[in-house]
């Protein structure tokens, strides 16, 4: 009952018990956790083969083949189209503008996305469900509606508070800030939708442990939360980057599409295509696709296996 076994292990000079670790009978798992062999029953049957064929065919016809054709058309005349595109200052300006806008809106969406995810997962507050539903609006509303909505609010002549901003010397619509706003709007949920499930899976015990060990909120976030969700954030960033680079409708409405000033890469593609410069259109399109595909590949290569 209360007569505790007080036989103590021998102590070394440091006063530390030196009982052999063998005192714990529980075996440690091997240093490198071996992946269990495939557990599903042996050879796939004919149905499995058929399903694979359907999926592969579907993805091939819908995604791989059309994308491949864009590349093929871009290089129809060798590197000529690509060289022409890259030596045209207006097109280069458009590409750089697209990159710049994408970089800014990805940065904004990452900071706010992680913040909103923490709010959604770690805190309870009235209106949480409404906020959650609201976050999907950017994905469901047509980008062109987004563009028009932004003009109604920020338009320089008769927007809701556009004129006030314009008087203060800040032009939103037909300028970079408006294009950043539009791009940020359409890509808003992507980081959140990647980070929320990861945060939910990780739980908050590690954060509580860090707090009890003396870490303040910022140190806890930087040392514990962020490393735990970093792959979710990385994937969200990649999706946002791809989405932002490719944004067309909303940007077209708010940019004014001024050559060499507010014309982005996607607008260049449309312009060249409509002006029968198919080579230029495909070359620019190829560059756009390249950025998106490259970032997805980079993340899948560096992401540890089995981690989201």
């Amino acid at each position: 009952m209360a007569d505790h076994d007080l036989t103590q292990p021998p102590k070394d000079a440091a006063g530390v018990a030196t009982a052999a670790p063998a005192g714990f009978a529980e075996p440690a798992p091997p240093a490198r956790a071996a992946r269990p062999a495939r557990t599903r029953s042996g050879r796939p049957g004919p149905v499995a083969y058929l399903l694979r064929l359907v999926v592969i065919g579907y993805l091939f016809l819908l995604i791989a083949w059309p994308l491949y054709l864009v590349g093929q058309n871009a290089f129809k005349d060798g590197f000529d189209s690509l060289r022409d595109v890259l030596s045209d200052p207006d097109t280069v300006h458009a590409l750089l503008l697209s990159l710049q806008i994408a970089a800014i809106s990805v940065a904004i969406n990452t900071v706010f996305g992680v913040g909103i995810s923490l709010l959604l997962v770690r805190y309870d507050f009235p209106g949480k469900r409404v906020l959650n539903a609201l976050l999907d609006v950017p994905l469901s509303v047509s980008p062109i509606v987004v563009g028009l909505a932004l003009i109604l609010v920020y338009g320089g002549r008769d927007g809701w508070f556009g004129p006030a901003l314009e008087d203060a010397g800040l032009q939103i619509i037909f300028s970079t800030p408006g294009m950043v706003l539009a791009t940020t709007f359409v890509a808003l949920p992507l980081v959140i939708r990647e980070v929320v499930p990861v945060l939910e899976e990780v739980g908050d015990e590690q954060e509580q442990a860090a707090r009890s060990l003396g870490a303040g909120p910022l140190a806890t976030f930087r040392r514990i939360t962020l490393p735990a969700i970093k792959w979710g954030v990385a994937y969200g960033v990649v999706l946002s980057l791809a989405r932002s680079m490719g944004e067309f409708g909303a940007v077209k409405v708010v940019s004014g599409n001024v050559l060499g000033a507010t014309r982005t890469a996607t607008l260049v593609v449309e312009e060249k295509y409509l002006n029968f410069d198919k080579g230029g259109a495909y070359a620019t399109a190829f560059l756009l696709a390249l950025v998106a595909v490259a970032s997805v590949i980079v993340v899948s290569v560096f992401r540890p296996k089995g981690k989201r």
Partner: protein
Amino acid sequence: MSIEIIDVGKRFGDFVALDNVSVSIPTGQLTALLGPSGGGKSTLLRIIAGLETADTGRIEIEGVDATRLPPQKRNVGFVFQHYAAFKHLTVRRNIAFGLEIRRRPKAEIRERVDELLALVHLTPFADRLPAQLSGGQRQRMALARALAVAPTVLLLDEPFGALDAKVRKELRDWLRRLHDEVHVTTVFVTHDQEEALEVADEIVVINEGRVEQIGSPDDLYDRPANEFVMRFLGPVTQLGGQLVRPHDIRIHTDSPQPGDVLGRVTRITRVGFEIRVEVATGTGEVTTVTLTRDALPTLGLEVGREVALRPVAGAGLTSPADRPALRAAG
């Protein structure tokens, strides 16, 4: 007194988790918060750690009012049931975490972590990730991590609850020995009365948000304050309308003395070294008596035999509220 809990109350919506609880936890001892699941003991531990805030009342740790202090300012070590290991850090970095936060010199951190690794027998595993450890090893790592910052109090929330029975028993013995070496004021939550009786210096029994009794393991087992404590800490049976422990009943076949309860043996079961005898008494109740294996042949018990039962002196409930029942039975 190391931790003073004064009139602490806590509600979750309509559910009263703690109802004006007051407990003093002595310095340097191993105290168990024991009770059924959902009784409020984990909530109390989390309030001491600052992971929950009390709705009412105060918490003092070593004389400092900690009621409104955030967890990182309380200098407590907390060990979670599911380890809460930092998955992206090695065992060594996990243990060093609190010291790194406190910006201690590198050499000091290394020395302290080496010492703790030896203490919890994890030196060979220092560079592994938590995913490469067994449950027991992870929990020892979590314990070392909590001890690294030299906490004023060490709080353990069902620390062995997620482990299998054998490892649980080993770790329990080991925690007791560790505490005899380190002497840090320790509070652990458990719903396992055997664990509490075996490991703790003092037990606080908590049920439905209230403290039922505080005392040493012997006190609680031998002198339970009420029926709940008596039933929760060990086996009980009825004798003459009174609650008694089955091993606290004398059974004999000689001529009955005044005060003996008469009955007839209905069943004899052997469980290992223990013999359980069920006796149907004249009042219609069935009383269970436990004996050691050796006692059975000398008593000559068999099913159907007339026997006399009497509780040993001092057995049964002795709280004032229950005394009338005891007298009536006597």
